[in-house]
C-alpha cells in the first residue's frame, strides 16, 4: 500500500479520498448494524467471564477467541494480568487500573472511561493457571497473523505449548504464508510434533526425520513415547522400520543432550564461582592480606545490599521512571562508601586493639556481626526488602538443548571479574597499594620508613569492607535482602580464601571458580546437600596436603 501511494499524484489523492467517503456513506448503515451485533456478542462473551466456575470461564474465553475481535484480545490480556473486574453494582465486566487506592475503570467494549471506583465496589475476575494457559493458546492463535515477527514467533510458541484440536490446521495455514525463515522452521517443527501421531505413515515418517535433528528434551520425550507399547501390547508406532528410525533419532538427541548437559554444568559452575568470588574478594583483603579473622564480613555484604535498597527507594521517589533502571549503577559507589565507613569504624573501634590475638578477634567480630544484624533489623524490620531487578538484567538467553543462561548471572560474572581486576590494579599500581603491601609484609620496616601503619591498617580494612559492600549490590539481585543475608555467605567466603591460599588474589579467583565448578558437577550426581559435604571433605583433604592453599605465598612474607 505504502509503495503504491508514492506514485499517486496529490490531486488524485483528493479524488480517491472523496470516493472512499462516498462509499463509506453507502456502507455505513450496514456497518453500524454489524458493529452493534459485534458489540452485543462481545458483551455477552465478556459477561460469561464474570462467573464463579472456572469451567464456565473457560467456555467464555474460547468464545471470545472465536470472535476474532481486537477488543477481545485486550480483554483477555487484561484477564491474564488480573486487571479485569466485575462491577458489583450492575455486574458488568470492566478493566480496572489501580492508582494507589482508587481504580480507574474502562469499558472493554467501547473503550470509554467509566469513572473511578473503590476496592469495595468491584471484584476481581480471578484466572487460574489452567485458564491462563488456555488464554495463552487463544491469544497465540489470534496473533499468528500479526505483522510483527517477534509477536508471531511468541504466538507460534504459545500455540505449540497449549495445542487444541484446531491447532494443526492453523499452524499449517500460518506456515504457508510465513516468510521469515526462523519462524517457518519453528512452525515446521510444531507441525511435525502434532503429526507424529497421524494415521498416514508418510506424514509420520516426514515428522520423525524432521524432529531427528532437534535437540530439545521435549521433542525427545515425544519421540520416546512413540516407542512405548499400548495397553493391549501393540506398539504405539506400528511400523517396524519407522520405529527403528525413531530409536536412532532418540539416541542421536541423547548424545547431543549429554554434551549440552556438560556445557550447562560448566556455565552454572562459572556462575556460582562468580558469586563465591564476589562474596570472598573483600575477605581476601581483610583476612587474606591483614590476617584478621573477620566474622562480620558477611554483614558488610548485607550493608551493601541494604544500601542498594535505600538508593532504589531514593530513585523511586525522586527520579523519573526511565532513570529507575540505573539505580543499580548508582548503588555501587554508595555501597562502597557505606560499607567502607563501617569498616573504618570497626577497625578503629575494636579490631586494632586485638591485632595478634586471633581468637579474641574472631569472637569480637562475631559480636559485631550480631550487633549489625540487629541494627539493620531494628531500622528496616525483620522482613525481606524488595530490590527490583531492572529490565536490562532480567530474562534468559537460550543456547539450545534446553539450556539457558539467565542474563543477571552473565552480568554478575562480568561484574565479579571487573571488580577483581580493578582491585588487583589498585593494589599493584597505586601508592596506597604499595604502602599496604609494605605494611603487611614487614610492619616494623614499613613503620621505620615513615608509613603510618595504623592509618594503613584502617584504610586496608575499609577497602576490604567496601569491596564486600559492592558485592552486596550484585548479590541483592539474586538473593533475599534480609538481615540474615551475610550469614549465608560467610562460610563459603572463608572456604574460598583458605582453599585459594591466604593472601593471594589469584588464589581467590581460582579457588572461587574451582569450587563453583566442582560443586555444580557434583550436584546433579549427588544432590545439593551431599554435594556440599563432598566439597567440604575435598577441601579438608586438600588443606592436609597443602596447608597454605592453592597459591601459597612464599618467602619471608609467608612466615610473618
Amino acid at each position, binding site marked *: 500500500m505504502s509503495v503504491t501511494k508514492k506514485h499517486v499524484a496529490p490531486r488524485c489523492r483528493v479524488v480517491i479520498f472523496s470516493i472512499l467517503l462516498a462509499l463509506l456513506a453507502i456502507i455505513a448503515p450496514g456497518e453500524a448494524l454489524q458493529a452493534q451485533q459485534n458489540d452485543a456478542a462481545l458483551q455477552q462473551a465478556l459477561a460469561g467471564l464474570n462467573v464463579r466456575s*472456572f*469451567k464456565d470461564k473457560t467456555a467464555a474465553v474460547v468464545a471470545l477467541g472465536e470472535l476474532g475481535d481486537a477488543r477481545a484480545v485486550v480483554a483477555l490480556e487484561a484477564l491474564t*494480568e*488480573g486487571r479485569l473486574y466485575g462491577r458489583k453494582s450492575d455486574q458488568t465486566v470492566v478493566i480496572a487500573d*489501580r492508582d494507589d487506592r482508587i481504580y480507574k475503570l474502562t469499558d472493554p467494549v467501547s473503550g470509554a472511561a467509566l469513572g473511578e471506583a473503590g476496592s469495595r465496589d468491584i*471484584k*476481581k475476575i*480471578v484466572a*487460574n*493457571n*489452567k485458564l*491462563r*494457559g488456555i488464554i*495463552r493458546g487463544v491469544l497465540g492463535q489470534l496473533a499468528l497473523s500479526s505483522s510483527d515477527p517477534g509477536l508471531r514467533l511468541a504466538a507460534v510458541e504459545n500455540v505449540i505449548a*497449549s495445542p487444541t484440536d484446531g491447532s494443526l490446521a492453523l499452524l499449517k495455514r500460518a506456515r504457508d504464508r510465513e516468510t521469515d525463515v526462523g519462524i517457518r522452521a519453528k512452525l515446521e517443527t510444531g507441525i511435525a510434533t502434532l503429526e507424529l501421531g497421524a494415521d498416514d505413515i508418510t506424514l509420520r515418517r516426514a515428522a520423525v526425520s524432521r524432529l531427528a535433528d532437534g535437540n*530439545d*528434551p*521435549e521433542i*525427545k*520425550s*515425544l519421540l520416546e*513415547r512413540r516407542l512405548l507399547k499400548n495397553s493391549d501390547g501393540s506398539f504405539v508406532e506400528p511400523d517396524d522400520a519407522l520405529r527403528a528410525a525413531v530409536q536412532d533419532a532418540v539416541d542421536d538427541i541423547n548424545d547431543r543432550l549429554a554434551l549440552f548437559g556438560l556445557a550447562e*554444568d560448566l556455565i*552454572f559452575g562459572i*556462575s*556460582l564461582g562468580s*558469586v563465591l568470588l564476589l562474596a570472598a574478594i573483600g575477605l581476601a583483603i581483610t583476612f587474606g592480606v591483614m590476617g584478621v579473622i573477620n566474622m562480620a564480613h558477611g554483614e558488610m555484604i548485607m550493608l551493601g545490599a541494604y544500601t542498594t535498597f535505600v538508593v532504589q527507594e531514593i530513585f523511586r521517589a525522586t527520579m523519573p521512571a526511565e532513570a529507575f533502571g540505573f539505580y543499580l549503577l548508582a548503588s555501587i559507589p554508595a555501597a562502597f562508601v557505606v560499607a567502607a565507613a563501617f569498616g573504618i569504624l570497626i577497625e578503629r573501634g575494636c579490631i586494632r586493639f586485638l591485632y595478634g590475638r586471633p581468637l579474641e578477634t574472631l569472637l569480637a567480630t562475631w559480636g559485631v556481626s550480631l550487633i549489625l544484624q540487629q541494627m539493620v*533489623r531494628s531500622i528496616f*524490620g*525483620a*522482613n*525481606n526488602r*524488595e530490590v*527490583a*531487578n531492572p529490565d536490562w538484567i*532480567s*530474562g*534468559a538467553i*537460550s543456547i539450545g538443548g*534446553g*539450556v*539457558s543462561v*539467565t*542474563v543477571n*548471572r552473565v552480568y554478575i560474572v562480568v561484574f565479579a571479574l571487573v571488580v577483581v581486576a580493578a582491585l588487583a590494579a589498585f593494589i599493584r599500581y597505586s601508592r596506597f597499594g604499595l604502602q599496604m603491601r609494605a605494611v603487611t609484609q614487614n610492619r616494623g620496616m614499613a613503620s621505620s620508613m615513615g608509613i603510618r601503619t595504623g592509618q594503613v591498617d584502617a584504610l586496608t580494612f575499609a577497602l576490604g569492607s567496601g569491596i564486600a559492600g559492592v558485592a552486596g549490590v550484585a548479590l541483592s539481585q*539474586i*538473593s*533475599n*535482602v*534480609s*538481615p*540474615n543475608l551475610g*550469614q*549465608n555467605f560467610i562460610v563459603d567466603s572463608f572456604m574460598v580464601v583458605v582453599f585459594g591460599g591466604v593472601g593471594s588474589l589469584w588464589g581467590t579467583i581460582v579457588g572461587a571458580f574451582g569450587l563453583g565448578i566442582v560443586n*555444580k558437577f557434583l*550436584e*546433579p550426581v549427588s*544432590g*545439593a*546437600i551431599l554435594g556440599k559435604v563432598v566439597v567440604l571433605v575435598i577441601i579438608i583433604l586438600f588443606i592436609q596436603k597443602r596447608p597454605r592453599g592453592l597459591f601459597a605465598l612464599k618467602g619471608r612474607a609467608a612466615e610473618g
Partner: protein
Amino acid sequence: MKSGFKTIAAAGVLAGSLAFSGMAQAADTIKVGILHSLSGTMAISETALKDVMLFMIDEQNKKGGLLGKQLEAVVVDPASDWPLFAEKARELIEQHKVDVVFGNWTSVLPVFEELNGMLFYPVQYEGEESSRNIFYTGAAPNQQAIPAVEYLMSEEGGSVKRWVLAGTDYVYPRTTNKILESFLKAKGVPAEDIMINYTPFGHSDWQTIVSDIKSFASAGKKTAVVSTVNGDANVPFYKELGNQGIKAEDIPVVAFSVGEEELAGIDTGPLVGHLAAWNYFMSVDAPENEDLIKKWHAFIGDDKRVFNDPMEAHYIGFNMWAQAVEQAGTTNIDAVRQAMYGQEVPNLTGGIAVMNTNHHLSKPVLIGEIQDDGQFATVWETDGVVVGDAWSDFLPESAKLTADWTYPWVCGNCEKPKYVTN
C-alpha cells in the same frame, strides 16, 4: 453444658496445686506469655505473631478483660535459638507464672509437659504429634499439603501427572513428603513420576535444581512442584524459575510456607500464578475479615501491614482460650483444657473453627494463586471445614494411632483407649 464444665473445673482446681500458686501470684492480672523470636533468622515470620498477640490482648482488655481482670502480656525473645526457646518457656511458666503461652517451636514440648503449661502453636507443621499441653492451631498435613495436591490433580488444577517434591532438609519437609509420597502412590502415581529433592537451609543457588525440574517436566506430562522449602529460600527459587522462563502455567509451584508476610518483601510480578495452600488469605472477601484488618491497622498504626494464616491461627486460638476461661471461671490449666474441647470461634474467612479432642482445629482449606500485589486470589476452597489429623492416614505406622484427650481415650498416641471396661 456450662455447669458440667464448671464441675470439671472445680475438680481441676483442687487437683492442680502448682497452678494454684500461680493464681495467687497473678491475683490482679491474668498473664499471657508470648514466646516468639524477635531477633535472629525466624524474626521475619514471628515478629508479626508477637504484634498480633498484643493486638488481641488489647482488644480483650477494651472489652473489660477476662473474669473481671485485665490481661497482661509477658513478651520474651528466644532469638531463633531452640535451646533458648526451652529456657524462655521455663522462665515464662516458673518465674512469670503465666496462665497460658502463645508461641512457636515444638522443642518446648517437654518443658510444657513437665510444668503442666498450656501452649498455643499457630504454625503449620508435620503432624505426627499430639500433646496434652499443646493446642495446635496451625494446619496439619491433611489441612494443607493433601488438599493442595488433590487440587492440582483435579481437572481445574491442571490434571497434574508428574510431581516434584522439593524441600529443605529438616523434619517438616521430610515427614510431609513421606506422607505425600505415599498419598500419591495410593492415587496411582508411579514412582518414576515422583522426584524428591532436598536442599540445605538458606539455599540460594537454584540453577541446577531448576534445570533438573525443567528436564523432569519435559516428559510430556503436566508437572507441578510441591515446595516444602523453608520460607525465605523460596524467593531465589521463584526468581530462578522466572529467569529461566518457566511460567506458573507451565510448571506451577505450590508452597506451604509462603504467605503474605513472606511476599511483603519481594517483587511478586514474576511469581503470579504460583500457588499456596493455607487456611486463611488476607484477600478473602468476608465482613469479619475486613473488620478485623481495619482494627489491626488502627492498632499497629500502619495500613501496609499484612495479616496472614498463622496470625489468624493466633486469633482463633486466643478467642477460644478466652471463651474457655470465661466458661471455666478460672485460668487453671486443667480446667481450661477441659473447657477448650468443642470451643467454637468464627473463622475470618467464613465458617466456624472447632477445637477437637485431638487438640487440632477444624478449619477450611483455601488454595490461592499469588497476585502481582503480593496478595493471593482464592482459586479453590473446601466445601466445609477439615478436621486436623494428628496422625496421618497415609503412613501405615501412624494410621492406626489415635489422639483423643477425653475419656475413655485420654491419650495422644494410642491404638486402644486407656480406660475401657470390657
